[in-house]
């Protein structure tokens, strides 16, 4: 039993990182119907920013983390303004947006490979590698911290979207962007803000990810981003609770598959869940079934 709970904690820890990244996919999709494939690479950028701040600039941890969060959020806005804004306001087809996103992804990966070379890098992790005693079991401290930080952030995000004015504007824009515009909401700013929050969450995910898996590479965002995207789709893309649930489900499924000795199949299980979901409920767990208007 103990081992089952430990494996569950492993899965939830991995899953909460997926969930944080999935939120970025889902929120952006909810508002501008763009699948931002560059989102996974934001994690990579946040890790390299941490590396630069800690190892190259030699800044203390308490400066490096806020700096990384701010810079990554700003990067989200810059990407939105430079790459997507004009396309969104012109109302181009979704496929053009998608291809632009892939372009941004390749651009980020190649740029960082050019600057930092292809070899893996690392800075000094700040959480100690040890276990803690918790209700008679001994889970890894890093996993527990990852889960707690992610849950707090998800709760904060939910409250933010529900209670604040900007949150309301986001919900309005996600429901009907043109109607929201007519009601006097600056949707362009709302979109930029959504990118900033998504990137911020990705930056937190990146920092937590590095604590457990200390290795930074230019292409590290690829598979992580893809799995988070799958999590968003499973939860119902566009839905905030959906992204959280989807991420946790994937993480736990992956950890459980590995724990019964089928590590070679862990990716197959992840994508298998996606296929089953798309067949049974294409709109995802929390997705609304909206008919396309002709």
């Amino acid at each position: 039993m103990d081992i089952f709970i430990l494996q569950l904690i492993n899965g939830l820890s991995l899953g909460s990182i997926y969930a944080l990244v999935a939120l970025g996919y889902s929120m952006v999709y909810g508002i501008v119907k763009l699948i931002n494939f560059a989102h996974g690479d934001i994690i990579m950028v946040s890790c390299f920013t941490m590396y630069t701040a800690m190892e190259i600039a030699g800044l203390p941890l308490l400066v490096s983390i806020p700096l990384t969060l701010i810079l990554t959020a700003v990067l989200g806005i810059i990407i939105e303004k430079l790459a997507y804004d004009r396309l969104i306001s012109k109302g181009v087809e979704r496929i053009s947006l998608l291809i632009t996103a892939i372009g941004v992804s390749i651009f980020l990966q190649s740029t960082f490979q050019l600057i930092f070379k292809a070899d893996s890098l690392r800075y000094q992790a700040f959480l100690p590698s040890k276990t803690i005693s918790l209700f008679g079991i001994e889970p890894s401290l890093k996993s527990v911290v990852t889960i707690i930080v992610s849950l707090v952030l998800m709760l904060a995000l939910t409250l933010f979207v529900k209670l604040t004015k900007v949150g309301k504007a986001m919900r309005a824009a996600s429901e009907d962007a043109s109607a929201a515009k007519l009601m006097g909401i600056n949707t362009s700013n709302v979109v930029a803000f959504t990118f900033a929050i998504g990137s911020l969450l990705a930056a937190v995910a990146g920092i937590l990810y590095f604590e457990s898996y200390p290795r930074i590479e230019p292409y590290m965002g690829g598979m992580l981003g893809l799995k988070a995207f799958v999590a968003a789709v499973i939860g119902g893309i566009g839905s905030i609770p959906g992204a959280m649930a989807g991420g946790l489900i994937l993480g736990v499924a992956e950890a459980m598959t590995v724990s019964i000795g089928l590590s070679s199949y862990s990716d197959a299980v992840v994508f298998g869940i996606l296929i089953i979901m798309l067949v049974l409920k294409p709109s995802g767990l929390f997705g609304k079934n909206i008919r396309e208007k002709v």
Partner: protein
Amino acid sequence: MKRKILASILAGLVTISSLTACDNKSNSGDGDEIVIGAVGPHTKDLSVYGIPVKNGIEMAVKEINENGGINGKKIRLAIEDNQSSDSEVVNAYNKLKDTEKVVAIIGDVTSGNSSIVAARANADKIPMLTPSATDASVTQTGEYIFRACFTDPVQGEIVANYSVEKLGAKTAAVLYNADDSYSRGLFEGFKAAAEELNLEIIAEETYNNKAVDFNSQLTNIKNANPDILFVPVYAEDAALIVNQAKSVGVTSTLVGGDGWDGILSKMNGGEDALANSYFFSGFSTVSTDEKVQKFVSDYKAAYDSDPASFAALAYDATYMMAEAIKNAGSTDGAKIIEELKKLEYDGITGTTKFGEDRNPIKAIMVSSFEGANYKYIENYEVD
């Protein structure tokens, strides 16, 4: 007296020229140089292994030439880059054989490419000595193919023997990369030997290429609580695994193969996770051996980096080949391989001689860690 020396030099020259004259297959014996080929990946993704090998070979050749060459002839090194590609390997080999007319080849570096070179070199009767290809099949190609490093299964066997004999292990767990032939090879050798030694393998966990999350596997291993955990993978992954093993609370002694070489540079602050870990390699920069220390400082001076075991094996391989050519007194392939078979060479990676299957028989170096440094433990040989 003077005349006597002159006469013996003349006699020597005549002998050499007559030897080379009847040996019309290899033109490179003519003149005053012996051409040795070096082929390996010097660009693209495999260059992390190819460059140190090339450096090691160049260093050895430079030293041999400075000390008078082979029987008075200088070695000329013909270097070809296989660009980390299967098709370029063939071009590189053909160039060495046809244009450069090499006497012998040091290379290739990785197992896949070495198999390709081995098949051709064996057919063309050109002696080949690979410093670093660990797949057992490479030397099985034929009697012209030798290797300087341990094969994967043999290394696994040595680790199992050491774990039982010196670490007193009764139970073991293994975590290896199921996609990687090096990792599987070590595991299989370990498993076979463990059965003979009554070392019980109580947990067998795998992962796949590009995996970074090992928490689930390690949680299972922690639960099984073995005496030792064998992690036969390369340093990149090993660093992550060692870190996570500590995070989830694995207390077993961790042991790794020569893939762990360089792991300390990838721990960055997490070095304490390596306390109580051992790894095995053909070469250790912290060895107290004078030859090794000289090699390490020369290498640093020349290439501004610490030599990896790849460089050390290449350095020894080059000396062994030169020694065999010298002993053969000829550049004829058949004579060189006879000398290689007889050779017993005391180098920086231990005293090497070649067994029946042209694989090396030598001691392995056991290292551990002390803070952020490697610690040399001992040289170990399976009886």
